[in-house]
């Protein structure tokens, strides 16, 4: 049966050539990078090389890169770590209503622990106005966190402009680049960020490894205490194979980025054009400031999970901000923050394209969806044909 994966924002397959770079570090060069003998030194070299690669792609210094066990851990370390280390300077944090849970819940943990939090609303396309950030800054603001691009609706934020004014104010600026690493150019100086998080499995690297950029001089309280790995910022024996995989995947993505982005944007626009022909369909997010691989729509009168199951039955893997996919009653906080009603937010569909996606995949999907939507609407008590 046709099997089309259109959920690259959720995770991506490991590239075989990336796996090749990892394989030597499982059973042969398996040393602990802290050891003085040959196996240890070779592990350390692989670690150093990987750090150099990541640093270079981000326009950073090697010692500014901290490897972590996931994107979520990188974000938690950035937010809790910086807030804790800065608490003598102030306790006010600014963030947005559409952050990923890893950032949102870290900030709310801080709130529970004595910090004050300002959550900025977004416009109907999911954009933050830099001026809104400026107005939210206070003398005791120590940290601002705004995601680079949203994982559900694909909206890209004006990070560079926000970063400039946050840094001018003297606060630290973090961006969650989990959705943009490997897709958009990431240069920490151009973006004006002090902290930037990413996760390898979103750009065809392995799961279980992420990275945090920490601008020189920015102090962090560690999340995982213990050994002196990662210059004392993240204890634990380094996952060399995973880190090598992260670096080589990022390297490949950086090299192919421009061409691949243009290709994806064309496919994305073809998908949008086709989906818009279905009545009662809304596009979520911005058409202009948008990830090249993200398509997000809401079909009125139907519910997302049943849509996904029907797509799955026809070999299409996709995702939804439907409450029922997460087992909660509330649909995606992102779609609600964009001003959608609960009812409509339940009927969202996200298709995210990737390296293997072809035009014929897009056409296949466009051939199946209208029928499924029609069938579910026929079954819906909300729909009057």
């Amino acid at each position, binding site marked *: 049966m046709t099997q089309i994966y259109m959920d690259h924002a959720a995770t991506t397959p490991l590239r075989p050539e990336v796996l090749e770079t990892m394989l030597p570090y499982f059973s042969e060069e398996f040393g602990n990078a802290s050891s003085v003998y040959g196996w240890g030194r070779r592990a350390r070299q692989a670690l150093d090389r990987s750090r150099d690669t990541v640093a270079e792609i981000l326009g950073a210094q090697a010692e500014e890169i901290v490897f972590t066990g996931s994107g979520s851990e990188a974000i938690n370390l950035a937010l809790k770590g910086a807030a804790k280390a800065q608490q003598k300077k102030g306790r006010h944090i600014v963030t947005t209503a559409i952050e990923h849970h890893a950032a949102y819940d870290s900030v709310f943990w801080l709130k529970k622990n004595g910090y004050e939090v300002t959550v900025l609303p977004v416009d109907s396309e999911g954009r933050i106005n830099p001026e809104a950030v400026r107005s939210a800054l206070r003398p005791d603001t120590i940290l601002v966190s705004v995601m680079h691009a949203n994982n559900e609706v694909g909206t890209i934020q004006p990070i560079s402009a926000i970063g400039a004014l946050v840094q001018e104010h003297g606060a630290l600026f973090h961006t969650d680049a989990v959705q943009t690493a490997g897709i958009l150019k990431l240069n920490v100086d151009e973006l004006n960020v002090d902290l930037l998080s990413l996760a390898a499995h979103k750009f065809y690297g392995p799961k279980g490894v992420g990275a945090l950029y920490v601008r020189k001089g920015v102090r962090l309280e560690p999340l995982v205490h213990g050994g002196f790995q990662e210059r004392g910022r993240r204890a634990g024996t380094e996952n060399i194979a995973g880190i090598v995989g992260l670096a080589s995947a990022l390297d490949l993505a950086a090299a192919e980025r421009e061409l691949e982005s243009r290709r994806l944007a064309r496919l994305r626009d073809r998908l949008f054009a086709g989906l818009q022909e279905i009545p009662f369909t809304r596009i979520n997010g911005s058409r202009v400031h948008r990830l090249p691989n993200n398509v997000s729509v809401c079909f009125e*009168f*139907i*519910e*997302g*999970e*049943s849509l996904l*199951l029907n797509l799955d*039955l026809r070999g299409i893997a996709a995702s939804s901000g*439907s*409450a*029922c*996919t997460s*087992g909660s*009653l509330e*649909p995606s906080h992102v779609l609600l923050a964009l001003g959608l009603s*609960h*009812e409509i937010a*339940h009927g969202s569909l996200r298709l995210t394209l990737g390296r293997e996606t072809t035009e014929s995949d897009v056409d296949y999907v466009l051939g199946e969806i209208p029928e499924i939507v029609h069938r579910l609407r*026929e*079954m*819906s*008590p*909300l729909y009057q044909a």
Partner: protein
Amino acid sequence: MYSEKVMDHFRNPRNVGELSQADGIGEVGNARCGDIMKLWIKVENGVISDLRFKTFGCGAAIATSSMITEIAKGKTLDEAENITDNLIAEALDGLPPLKMHCSNLAADALKAAIADYRLKQSSAS
């Protein structure tokens, strides 16, 4: 995630639609929470002779809707009122824990339809 039985009812839901001359109609859930079930029943001599449903909801919501129409058909009203959410879930070879509330919804919709029927009967008499 879902059992074969659930997927069978999801793929080929039984008794979808409306009954133009229903004797009772039940509607439960709300769009805010992502599931609404509407159930039409026909009653003959105290026995449910036919049912139809329309559901806005997840896979489990659609499957339980379909399943309850099969279970309730041919049952007396009293029997039908005693159909529990567990019974529906069992008939579907189980539901994921997070989806158990969906079987609740179906049982409630049936109760609501029977209540509606009884109300109409008592106001007619």
